[in-house]
């Protein structure tokens, strides 16, 4: 075990172990972060949503985007799997269809970084119990 001998040592260790609880700290303040929900029902997984989710998790940080990536159940757009719902703080959620890893990259670069919309957005046109 390497001993902590200075403030710098403590800071270095803190940075190394930060990832251990990062996910928990982020979820405490989801409202102020970008939330990405990946539909992970059977159809989604079969269409490659797992790769999509991993791609987001690995590449968001590289691009300096702080986001919470969660999986969710079937959204019902089975024709457009993998589907991903993205909520930017203070904005309405947007659902993207056919999100392969290439499209995930496009979303990161265009929508998340520059607020530019990309093709294949699924209009949300249903009400839920809460709206009634």
């Amino acid at each position, binding site marked *: 075990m390497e001993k902590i001998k200075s403030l710098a040592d403590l800071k270095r260790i803190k940075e190394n*172990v930060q990832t251990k609880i990062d996910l928990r700290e982020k979820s405490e303040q989801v409202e102020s972060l970008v939330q990405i929900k990946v*539909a992970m029902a059977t159809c989604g997984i079969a269409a490659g949503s797992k790769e999509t989710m991993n791609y987001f998790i690995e590449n968001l940080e590289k691009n300096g985007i702080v986001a919470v990536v969660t999986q969710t159940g079937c959204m019902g757009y089975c024709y457009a799997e993998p589907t991903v719902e993205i909520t930017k703080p203070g904005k309405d959620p947007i659902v993207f269809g056919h999100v392969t890893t290439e499209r995930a990259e496009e979303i990161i670069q265009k929508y998340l970084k520059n607020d530019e919309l990309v093709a294949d957005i699924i209009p949300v046109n249903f009400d839920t119990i809460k709206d009634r």
Partner: protein
Amino acid sequence: MSYKMHVLVCGGTGCRASASQQIITRLEESLREKNLEDEVQVIATGCFGFCEKGPIVKIMPDNTFYVQVKPEDAEEIVNEHVIKGRKVERLLYKDPEKKEAVSDSKHMGFYKKQLRIALRNCGFINPENIEEYIARDGYSALAKCITELKPEEVIQEIKLSGLRGRGGGGFPTGLKWEFASKYQADQKYVVCNADEGDPGAFMDRSIMEGDPHSVIEAMAICGYSIGATKGLVYIRAEYPLAIQRLKIAIQQAKEYGLLGQNIFGTDFTFDIELRYGAGAFVCGEETALIHSMEGHRGEPTMKPPFPAESGYLNRPTNVNNVETLANIPAIIMKGANWFNKIGTERSKGTKVFALAGKINNVGLIEVPMGTTLREVIYEIGGGIKNDKKFKAVQTGGPSGGCLTEKHLDVPIDFDNLLASGSMMGSGGMIVMDEDDCMVSVAKFYLEFTVEESCGKCTPCRVGNKRLHEILDKITQGKGTMEDLDTLRNLSRVIKDTALCGLGQTSPNPVLSTIDNFYDEYLAHIKDKKCPAGKCKALLMYHIDPELCIGCGLCARNCPVDAIVGERKEPHFINTAKCIKCGACMEKCKFKAVSTR
């Protein structure tokens, strides 16, 4: 590859008693079966506080809060929530008023009004992993103190924060440190008072179980400030899990060089050892605690000399309670001016309360000072069980008193509670409803003090015994009006003459119940009746001949054959034989049996 999902399972004593350990095992098994062990991490944390609904399982990042989880639910959580992303509805908390499921703890009444400073890491980190504490800025406060601040600057910061001792007395912590720093000696000591003794209070245990490093870090900060190199934790042996977690934490801190010699490359040295107490209430008093640590009888001695001058082994000693210490790192990191903006004018910060008794949400809560009793009981506590009427809340343990309806809107802080005839104590709150007899409550607390009195001084040893006898006499229906005067006078004498805090405060439950529930005492003495129906000797069981159909169920269940009557005719209770067990009332299907 980092984990995509964290499953936090409460590993506090309460939830472990409801098999949370097995939940963890089953979750891990299930995840392994599905090859998800590298994606989903299961973590045993400290107490979440919502003990009423334990065991708690919280899933992050989607903040789903599952309550009353059983080991056999583990598989469903993995199959449904983890794999398919569907919440397990039946395990979600149901809002008792709106009758709908709430999945995020932030939206639960229990958590809404809380502000967690002392409990900041409880239910969030794995207490057995120092790295998670470091990731939460752990030991940064210690680093800041010993590398950037002079000892007197640290003390100044604590003084400025307005932090007062959370163990009961409410003495300003910074001032206490300053006293200890002024005395010169070859060795000084920092003692953590973990002898939590109030019935119903368990905040110190939960902090040590859920965030042991915060206590260790604070003790080291205190050591640096007062010039001590040795720390001792006086903990009761009946807290095995807290002891185990503290031991692991101390060991880890030593491995990382955060305890021991030359901490952070400076010449500051600090070490911590544990001392076990046998669980005597009086040992929470600092002089008694010190004697017990020295291997002597746990009896208090007169102050002065204060421990700051002559404490453990006659050396200057600073004694702080667990919760007080847990606040220290947060104050250093966020600044005294952040802390002293929370709370009321003379009571800064937050206080942890253990809610118990006839309240819906039993558990551990932390609220800013100045929160009202009404907010605590009705909003956080969810009101009284079974929609009964609120009668009183006992605060401050055996040294405290009862607060009633008229105190519900009093902002809770050290001074307001004292002015209302009770005290903060260590933060136990026992809620009582209309079925609780206040004379019996006072008797219960006196029983406790009589049991726990060390016997050294006469007022406490004999006086409390007499108080208990008189209360017992009243509950038997044999009390007189003179007894009430005797109770009052004797109480005052004990308060004025007892040697230590235990005796000086032990008559409080008597005085406060006489003040607030005088009519109830009168009913016992004059009418020979117990309005709450608790005092057995004053109870008469009675069968209403109009309602009784003569089924004979009561007679068959009476253990002493006190009920007589012909079949299909109204029955009668022979009061001379009746032992008032209540079996007849319980069994009667026609509500014909009543007490009066």
